[in-house]
């Protein structure tokens, strides 16, 4: 187990270097960021070359990348164009997005799994059909439509919540955005759980458990659910990374100052330091989430063992 974890962690190093290099090059290809700093006019050439020098843009790309990586390993993610340290931006943005992601995952787990079990056990009944239809609608409608609609209905028409989230982003204000962010994945989780439960409900071990005279709730939670959740856990694990990176749309609609906001701003201003820094951390989150999923397998399925 320990060796397996170490091996997986070591595998992350090349992925990390490759990912940062790719992003670095992509932002670089977008062109020179200095030109956008002076409004609708040319920066005066002297200031322009000073700025270029300060941000290290006057050197060749490979050199810029090496310096950047050198700084990253000493914990310095550089400075954004507005003079703010990228590490400060991260410190303010990641907790917010993490909270939003957790709210979303909680929705996926609770609502998604419950609906999945419910429909899986009542295949073909009205409950099953209507939930299936509902999930189909949710999957078909893009997030920005759900988001704007939810904002309009709950925030403006009914005034149950504030239409935007204040900058401290307390948990209570993140419930609606979290639900919107989770909506599509939630539908997938429901469908995955449903299929899985339906399939396992006919399996031998469930029949045995029922025959033994175990109470129904015990059959479902201990025998049926434990085996049915394996594909769901895989999905949610990979989804954590996707949710954090994909929150750009939701964060924009609800004015949440998280990772999506910083990335969006960074891309518009072609701020290499911000974009590469944030995406690098996202890549790490994604890799760690995947590792965690693999480890949880072993817990769910005793047959799986890592050497």
């Amino acid at each position: 187990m320990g060796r397996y974890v170490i091996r997986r962690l070591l595998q992350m190093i090349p992925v990390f270097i490759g990912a940062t290099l790719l992003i670095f090059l992509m932002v670089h290809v977008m062109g020179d960021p200095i030109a956008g700093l002076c409004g609708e006019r040319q920066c005066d050439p002297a200031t322009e070359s000073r700025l270029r020098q300060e941000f290290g843009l006057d050197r060749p790309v490979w050199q810029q990348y090496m310096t950047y990586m050198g700084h990253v390993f000493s914990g310095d993610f550089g400075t954004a164009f507005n003079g703010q340290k990228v590490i400060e931006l991260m410190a303010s943005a990641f907790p917010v997005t993490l909270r939003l992601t957790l709210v979303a995952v909680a929705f996926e787990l609770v609502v998604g799994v419950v609906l999945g079990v419910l429909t899986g056990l009542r295949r073909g009944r009205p409950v099953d059909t209507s939930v299936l239809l509902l999930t189909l609608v949710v999957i078909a409608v893009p997030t920005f439509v759900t988001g704007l609609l939810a904002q309009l209905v709950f925030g403006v028409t009914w005034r149950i919540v504030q239409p935007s989230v204040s900058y401290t982003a307390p948990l209570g204000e993140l419930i609606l955005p979290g639900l919107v962010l989770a909506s599509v994945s939630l539908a997938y989780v429901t469908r995955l759980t449903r299929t899985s439960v339906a399939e396992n409900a006919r399996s031998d071990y469930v029949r045995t458990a029922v025959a033994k005279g175990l109470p129904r709730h015990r059959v479902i939670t201990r025998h049926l659910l434990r085996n049915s959740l394996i594909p769901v856990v895989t999905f949610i694990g990979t989804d954590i990374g996707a949710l954090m990176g994909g929150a750009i749309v939701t964060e924009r609609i609800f004015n949440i100052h998280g990772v999506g906001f910083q990335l969006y701003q960074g891309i518009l201003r072609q701020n290499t330091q911000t974009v590469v820094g944030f995406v690098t951390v996202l890549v790490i989150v994604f890799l760690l989430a995947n590792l965690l999923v693999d480890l949880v397998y072993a817990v769910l399925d005793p047959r799986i063992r890592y050497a």
Partner: protein
Amino acid sequence: MRGAAPVTRAACALAVALTAASCGGGSGAGAGGPDGVLSSSWGDPQNPLEPANTNEVQGGKVLDMIFRGLKTYDPRTGKARNALAERIDTTDSTHFTVTVKDGWTFSNGEQVTAKSFVDAWNYGAHLKNNQKNAYFFEYVEGYDKVHPASGRPTAETLTGLGVTGPLTFTVKLSQRFSTWPDTLGYAAFAPLPRAFFDHHDAWLAKPVGNGPYEVESYTRGAQMSLRAWKGYPGSDKARNGGVDLRVYTDGNTAYTDLVSGNLDLVDDVPAAQLKNVRADLEGRYINAPAGILQTLSFPYYDPAWNTPGAVKVRTGLSMAINRRQITETIFRGTRTPATDWTSPVLGAAGGYKAGLCGRACAHDPAAARRLIAEGGGIPGGRLTITYNTDTGSHKEWVDAVCNSINNALGNDRSCVGSPVGTFADFRNRIGRKKLTGPFRAGWQMDYPLIQNFLQPLYYSNGSANDGRWSNARFNELVNEANADTDTSTAIRTFQRAEEVVRDQMAGIPLWYQNGSAGYAARISHVELNPFSVPVYHEITVR
């Protein structure tokens, strides 16, 4: 306390869901009257908040609240009037003696003296400080020493500035510039306290100035809380308790917040909402002229556009555009068809001359077709208009302009838009001088003078002369106007220079842009100044 808040919020949302009662969200502070605090939409400033380093409207908004310079612009007429300047004397338009009013302090108690100005200007001009507005000091003698076009600076301070007393200083310009005192209301010319130089990082984290507001707290990228400064000595004291500026990434969210009562003031109503705004806000909507002119510029470094025939083509293109229809349908009256190269906010006395463009700006498809044919047709056979897609709603109007041109020429393929993803990349392409067709150019004035609408844009190698247009006659007239000590003749000379721009159709004027703002019922006396920034200190809270 902090930990408890989310729970109550959640409980509140639940309770409301059950009982359908209202849960007092609303705008931060509940108090009204002279201590009432209002909330306003904001965008994250692009540059550090130093006066000589802020060249966009979001940072400028804050500087306008926390600083007062020698001059200030009247929020209604745009006329420059003395603020901290007791008087600015000159006899030859080159040597100026500035007397600063006595009794002014920064909000930290430090006296505002002549030295506060001179130090600030020296800081703004010096190359090592990377100030993006440094060129505002280019007319001061010695600028080429502290800010050489290439190489290292050879001096620490501008030789043209000299402190002659606690409240007096002299300025020597490198050329005659009669309207120079009127430029001093621009934020770059603000005075700076010692704290700015001694504890620079701390100052940037919480700027200290001498304006009607002081910064109470500033969370970068999220919110700035400004409170009325009780000790403000000026006559334009704040009539409210303060302003909370909140950063929004999407103008639509800010607008939704305004409609639902979560925000008090939005100073840029998104184009998509313009058709609902009057009904949504029951008339609490302002649509006021601002000093912004949208034009199409041309790449004069491309020889095809630099011929006598191309003048006719450009004039023809200008006549092909149905300005009225576009401003009414796409912008719903928040733009006005342009008939000169300045802005109505200057007023007739300031140099605005309605109809100066004449027939060349009137919609006349038949004449347009004839002129373009006479000029040898569009260079390259097809017109591509380059624009950026990340700000404003440029795509809509570029497509509409192309449509106008296509209709006039009876050819569906004679004009297409060429979108560029980001503003930075757009500026890059302009800077590289590789464009072969016209491109979008929006000019927001720095200060309300006709000079600011002409010299930076059309003077040879002007800072915003992106198309590199060059005309000896125009340069001559601008020099003559700048040297004129009589303001009204200077303005007439500028207008003659503007006629050169018209006759050559150096840039096609499209429309004057208005500022638009919507506000909540709990605030009143909301106005936009000619820079399309709300006049915060005049707003009252109910």
